[in-house]
């Protein structure tokens, strides 16, 4: 456990000694901030009008501000996750520092969990930016906080899965750019599967929908935890980490 945390903390601090952390956080803050303020402005307008006409149903902050702004984040992650994960193993493979880790008294799983956790911590900072934005809502309105927490949990799980896949793809190469491109490609594919499912109604369509990453977040963003979504993200994360372990083993056979 201590070893895993040591590795995670090193990864996390390296993000901040390079520009990556700042770039990722800035992009996220900008995009999230835009969706959030746009949603908020729309909400204000609308509720103003509603006050004028007594027959209209009351507005819900969760539905009109929180849901859409968090819901849009799956696309943003498509771009930001590869930036976070591309260097994890690729850089160690290139510089040869992987030799230090693999000849230290560590288990492979500690190295992989540590790296994944380090990336997850940076991702946590991104979510923190979102939380700071959202907390403004509590000053002026009364959103329901339970669905908000569920939506954040969903976002965290989705990120964890994507980062686990990115970690695996980073073990495959010694070139960060290749690792990043591979991760983006795979995530994009998993995203596009969602469109395929709208053309296909057969079992293939349903399979595609199940495999796609973003549909599983929809229920979360509405504040509903469904078992199948939970299972999807947890098993996706486990798969990514398991593949990383296998890849690290086979790296030794090839290296």
């Amino acid at each position, binding site marked *: 456990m201590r070893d895993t945390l040591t590795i995670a903390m090193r990864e996390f601090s390296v993000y901040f*000694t390079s520009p990556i952390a700042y770039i990722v956080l800035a992009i996220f803050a900008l995009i999230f901030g835009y969706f959030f303020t746009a949603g908020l402005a729309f909400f204000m307008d609308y509720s103003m009008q509603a006050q004028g006409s007594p027959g209209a149903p009351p507005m819900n902050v969760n539905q009109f501000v929180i849901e859409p702004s968090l819901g849009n984040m799956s696309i943003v992650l498509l771009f930001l996750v590869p930036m976070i994960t591309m260097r994890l193993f690729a850089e160690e493979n290139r510089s*040869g*520092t992987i*030799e*230090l880790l693999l000849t*230290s*008294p*560590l288990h492979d799983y500690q190295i992989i969990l540590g790296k994944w956790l380090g990336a997850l911590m940076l991702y946590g900072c991104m979510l923190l930016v979102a939380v700071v934005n959202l907390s403004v809502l509590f000053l002026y309105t009364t959103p329901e906080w339970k669905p908000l927490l569920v939506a954040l949990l969903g976002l965290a799980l989705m990120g964890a899965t994507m980062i686990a896949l990115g970690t695996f793809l980073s073990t495959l190469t010694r070139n960060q750019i290749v690792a990043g491109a591979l991760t983006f490609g795979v995530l994009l594919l998993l995203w596009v599967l969602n469109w395929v499912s709208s053309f296909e109604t057969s079992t293939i369509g349903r399979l595609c929908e199940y495999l796609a990453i973003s549909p599983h977040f929809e229920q979360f963003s509405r504040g509903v935890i469904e078992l199948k979504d939970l299972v999807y993200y947890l098993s996706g994360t486990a798969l990514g980490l398991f593949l990383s372990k296998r890849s690290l083993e086979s790296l030794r056979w090839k290296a």
Partner: protein
Amino acid sequence: MIRVEGVTKRYGPTTAVDNISFEVERGEIVGFLGPNGAGKTTTMRILTGFLPPTRGAASVAGFDVATQPIEAKSRIGYLPESPPLYPEMSVIDYLRFVASIKHIPRKEIPKRIDAVLERTSTTDVRDKLLGKLSKGYRQRIGLAQALIHAPEVLIFDEPTSGLDPKQIIEVRELIRSLAGEHTILLSTHILPEVASTCGRVIIINEGRIEASDSLDNLTARLEGATALLLDVEGPPDEVRRALELDLAVRSVAEESRLGDRTALRVEVDKDDRVARRLAAVVVNSGWGLYGMRSLGMSLEDIFLQLTSQEEQANGGEGPAAGQGSDGGAPAADTAEGQEGDDR
């Protein structure tokens, strides 16, 4: 302390290490000597658990590297061929990180870091970024990293490569100062390095061990062999065949040819009568002997001899006994050796 048994490593079709076995006893400093591509790095990577062997087993401090990797690895300090440094970290942060993954108790970490910084004379760069260090300092931090958990076994892959002469001397002194406390295996392709730091040498070439002996014995063996340069007038191939018949002759190589005369380099076992016999062979066959000179065998010669293949094939052992032509040799030697024979 270190035990390698029948280890083979293949990378696809190439065999990097071919069924090698050796042992290093506690407290020894052993030099692992071989030309480029001999398989030194590969062997060390197998010993440190970075690579699994295709066949065979390696153990360190009594722990099998494959089945008890954590126990074995915690007893090894390893300096890879290129020091595994993270350029964006400072020296002190890096050593703290390494100390932590090597399981040094948290309280002892500052003490250990100070100790290795002092030992490798790097205290003055402790706050610098690793990426900004010069090659010599990088190498030393690589050594500091290997020493930090005071391991029983040290494995250094070319610890002095890329250093200037002054730094080479300093690093060698450092390594010598580690003797006694640690068991050390270091690789190099520079002979003087072995002479100045190691008690025993393992010579490896093309994945096979060619020799493994104490430095004294090896030097004695070097002195046991010597080379002669003969300047002969006669058909070169016939001369060669005739000379090779002598049992003390290890190899005959043509150095240069000028008209009818050929300069031949003849490597022989040390034997005070061999020069007479060879002279007799030449003269009795009716060829002309224009010169014969003894060439001392340097450390480099032996290294080259041990690591170049063809010469392995016809290595005659021991001095030749009872050569028929011995009787008439001394006379012929003086008679035909017109250009002087300065042995």
